[in-house]
């Protein structure tokens, strides 16, 4: 019962006009930076941080949390409308979301993303409220071998994301390979950097994403000899049938996102990948994916929002960062003289509960704001593409530059953009390459950390229960299509 009492007190704290304003300002700013490629919630929080020195810490944390989950909504917008993922966690959304937009269903895609994000945000805030301390302790059970096994499970998706298995594996391997560029975290020494300072940190994830999806799409669409059919925007909101199709993906996405978000070394991006793959695996007709399947939008979009709330779990319950952005929020707490630690929930109960209450409110604001906007923004597609793509290119340039204020990154954008066009032209899937780049670093680090821990024995992956279960799941994921292929002729004679 104390939960209800605490939450009521939290709502009382969050519903003051000033805190409501902060909540609105946060989700609004988050939505904006989320939609812009390159600039993410962490930069926005860092920008606003000095302005909040001396202010009330609760209001400031409400603002920052709003930016964080608001950004997950905003990332959808540009993914669906112009195939430029505003946030890394929106990459999967742009695959089916953009196809839906081309079919005149942009309103439905944005609408379901907003509804899914709202449901996921609310479910995971409930999870945060009720389960934070035990969940955070459970997340501590993840050491290097467990992360390794989780990443292996993620890598089984390389072949599943795109069309051709062989091509998916090849581009995925290319992504893994470029993840080795730059300073090796285990030794601090650079490799494959060709003595270039700007390669010491490797190939940026945002750079590759915006290049392959954004620039690649511009080059292939603008290059078509026949003009793109001018899209008619049919429905501004998802139809009853689409809503029915999306219900389960939203619930599954919420669950996956929350759990993956709680783990400190993984975040919204990996959560959205896993949600997409799960949807594709459970779908009756997986071939619809990549051609505008609404489940491919509903799952990942719910999942990245749930992950943002999940990442608050270790932050609030243990005082350890659950993601890059929560690390900055933790830094902000320290600036306000609040020492993050396992006792935050008890010692600063008023702050924690007010922030939790503000997350419910913020999600409602986002839904109210996004549903009408979905229809409005979908109208953008009525503009002929020849007017649209030059500014899209300029946006890609500005976004990629802003990520690290680096002109070399923009050159990489041009080169990888051309590669993305060539890949699209010959049906080589781009998503596995992104997946390889994201998972490559954590794959290599966790492998080497685990082997160091076990003094060189690979048994560590099979004797630790969580790791063993995850690896078994990976084995099933790889073997099931093979087994199906072997046994199908017997089950279906003549097939």
């Amino acid at each position, binding site marked *: 019962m104390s939960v209800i009492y605490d939450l009521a007190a939290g709502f009382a704290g969050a519903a003051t006009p000033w805190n409501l304003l902060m909540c609105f300002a946060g989700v609004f700013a988050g939505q904006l930076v989320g939609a812009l490629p390159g600039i993410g919630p962490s930069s926005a929080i860092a920008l606003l941080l000095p302005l909040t020195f001396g202010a009330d810490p609760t209001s400031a944390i409400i603002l920052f949390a709003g930016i964080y989950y608001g950004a997950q909504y905003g990332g959808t917008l540009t993914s669906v409308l112009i195939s430029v993922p505003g946030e890394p966690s929106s990459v999967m959304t742009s695959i089916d979301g953009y196809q839906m937009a081309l079919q005149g269903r942009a309103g439905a895609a944005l609408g379901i993303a907003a509804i899914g994000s709202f449901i996921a945000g609310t479910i995971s805030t409930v999870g945060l409220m009720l389960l934070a301390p035990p969940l955070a302790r459970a997340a501590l059970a993840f050491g290097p071998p467990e992360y390794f096994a989780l990443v292996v499970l993620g890598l089984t998706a390389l072949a599943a994301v795109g069309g051709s298995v062989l091509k998916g594996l090849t581009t995925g391997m290319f992504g893994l390979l470029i993840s080795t560029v730059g300073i090796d975290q285990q*030794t601090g*020494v650079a*490799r494959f950097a060709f003595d270039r300072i700007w390669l010491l940190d490797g190939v940026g994830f945002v750079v590759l994403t915006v290049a392959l999806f954004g620039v690649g799409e511009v080059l292939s669409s603008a*290059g078509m000899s026949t003009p793109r059919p001018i899209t008619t925007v049919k429905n501004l909101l998802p139809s009853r049938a689409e809503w029915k199709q999306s219900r389960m993906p939203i619930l599954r996405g919420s669950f996956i996102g929350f759990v993956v978000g709680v783990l400190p070394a993984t975040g919204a991006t990996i959560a959205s990948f896993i949600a997409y793959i799960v949807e594709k695996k459970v779908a009756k007709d997986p071939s619809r994916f990549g051609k505008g399947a609404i489940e491919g939008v509903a799952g990942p979009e719910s999942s990245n929002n749930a992950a943002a709330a999940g990442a608050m779990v270790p932050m609030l319950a243990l005082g350890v960062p659950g993601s890059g952005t929560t690390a900055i929020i933790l830094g902000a707490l320290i600036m306000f003289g609040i020492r993050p630690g396992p006792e935050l929930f008890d010692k600063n109960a008023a702050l924690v509960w007010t922030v939790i209450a503000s997350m419910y409110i913020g999600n409602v604001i986002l839904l109210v704001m996004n549903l009408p906007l979905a229809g409005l923004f979908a109208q953008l597609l009525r503009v002929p593409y020849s007017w649209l793509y030059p500014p899209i*290119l300029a946006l890609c340039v500005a976004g990629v530059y802003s990520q690290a204020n680096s002109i070399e990154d923009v050159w990489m954008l041009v080169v990888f953009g051309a590669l993305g066009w060539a*890949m699209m032209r010959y049906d080589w899937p781009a998503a596995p390459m992104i997946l390889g780049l994201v998972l490559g670093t954590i794959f290599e680090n966790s492998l080497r950390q685990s082997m*160091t821990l076990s003094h060189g024995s690979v048994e560590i992956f099979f004797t630790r229960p969580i790791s063993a279960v995850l690896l078994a799941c990976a084995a099933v994921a790889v073997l099931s299509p093979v087994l199906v292929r072997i046994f199908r002729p017997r089950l279906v004679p003549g097939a």
Partner: protein
Amino acid sequence: MLLRAIGGELALCAVFIATGAFWIVTAAGLPMWDGFAPATGFLPLVYGLLLAALGVAATVVDVVSADGDAGPKGPIGRPLMIVLALAAGVAGIETAGFFVSMFLSMLFLFRVAERRPLAASLAASAGSSLFLTLVFRTWLGVPLPSGPWGF
């Protein structure tokens, strides 16, 4: 005709094989094992080998299954022109500044590549450039380079 149909595919395969080969050669010069665990060069070597092998396999599949009458893939000229305009715009950022450089590159695309009316092209390029500069530089504090004339 066959080469024409699958030439682009083969070029992509060649890029992947060459990258794999380069990684193999470079990784071979790095330490492979350190104490208990793989060292800096181990996984790059594995990735290089796998990428090269996958590239070869994709080449074989392409050649074997090529049917010579695959559908038209669209022209190469226009994407090339756009990518060059983009590259020229990027090359100009450090000297002419983001605003001017992107303005010119968009103007070229609107006017030359898309043959839009001059007045509308001017307005659209200037408007988009101004909007992006406003959002990124003024509001978000991103130090987008400016030209010798201060913007």
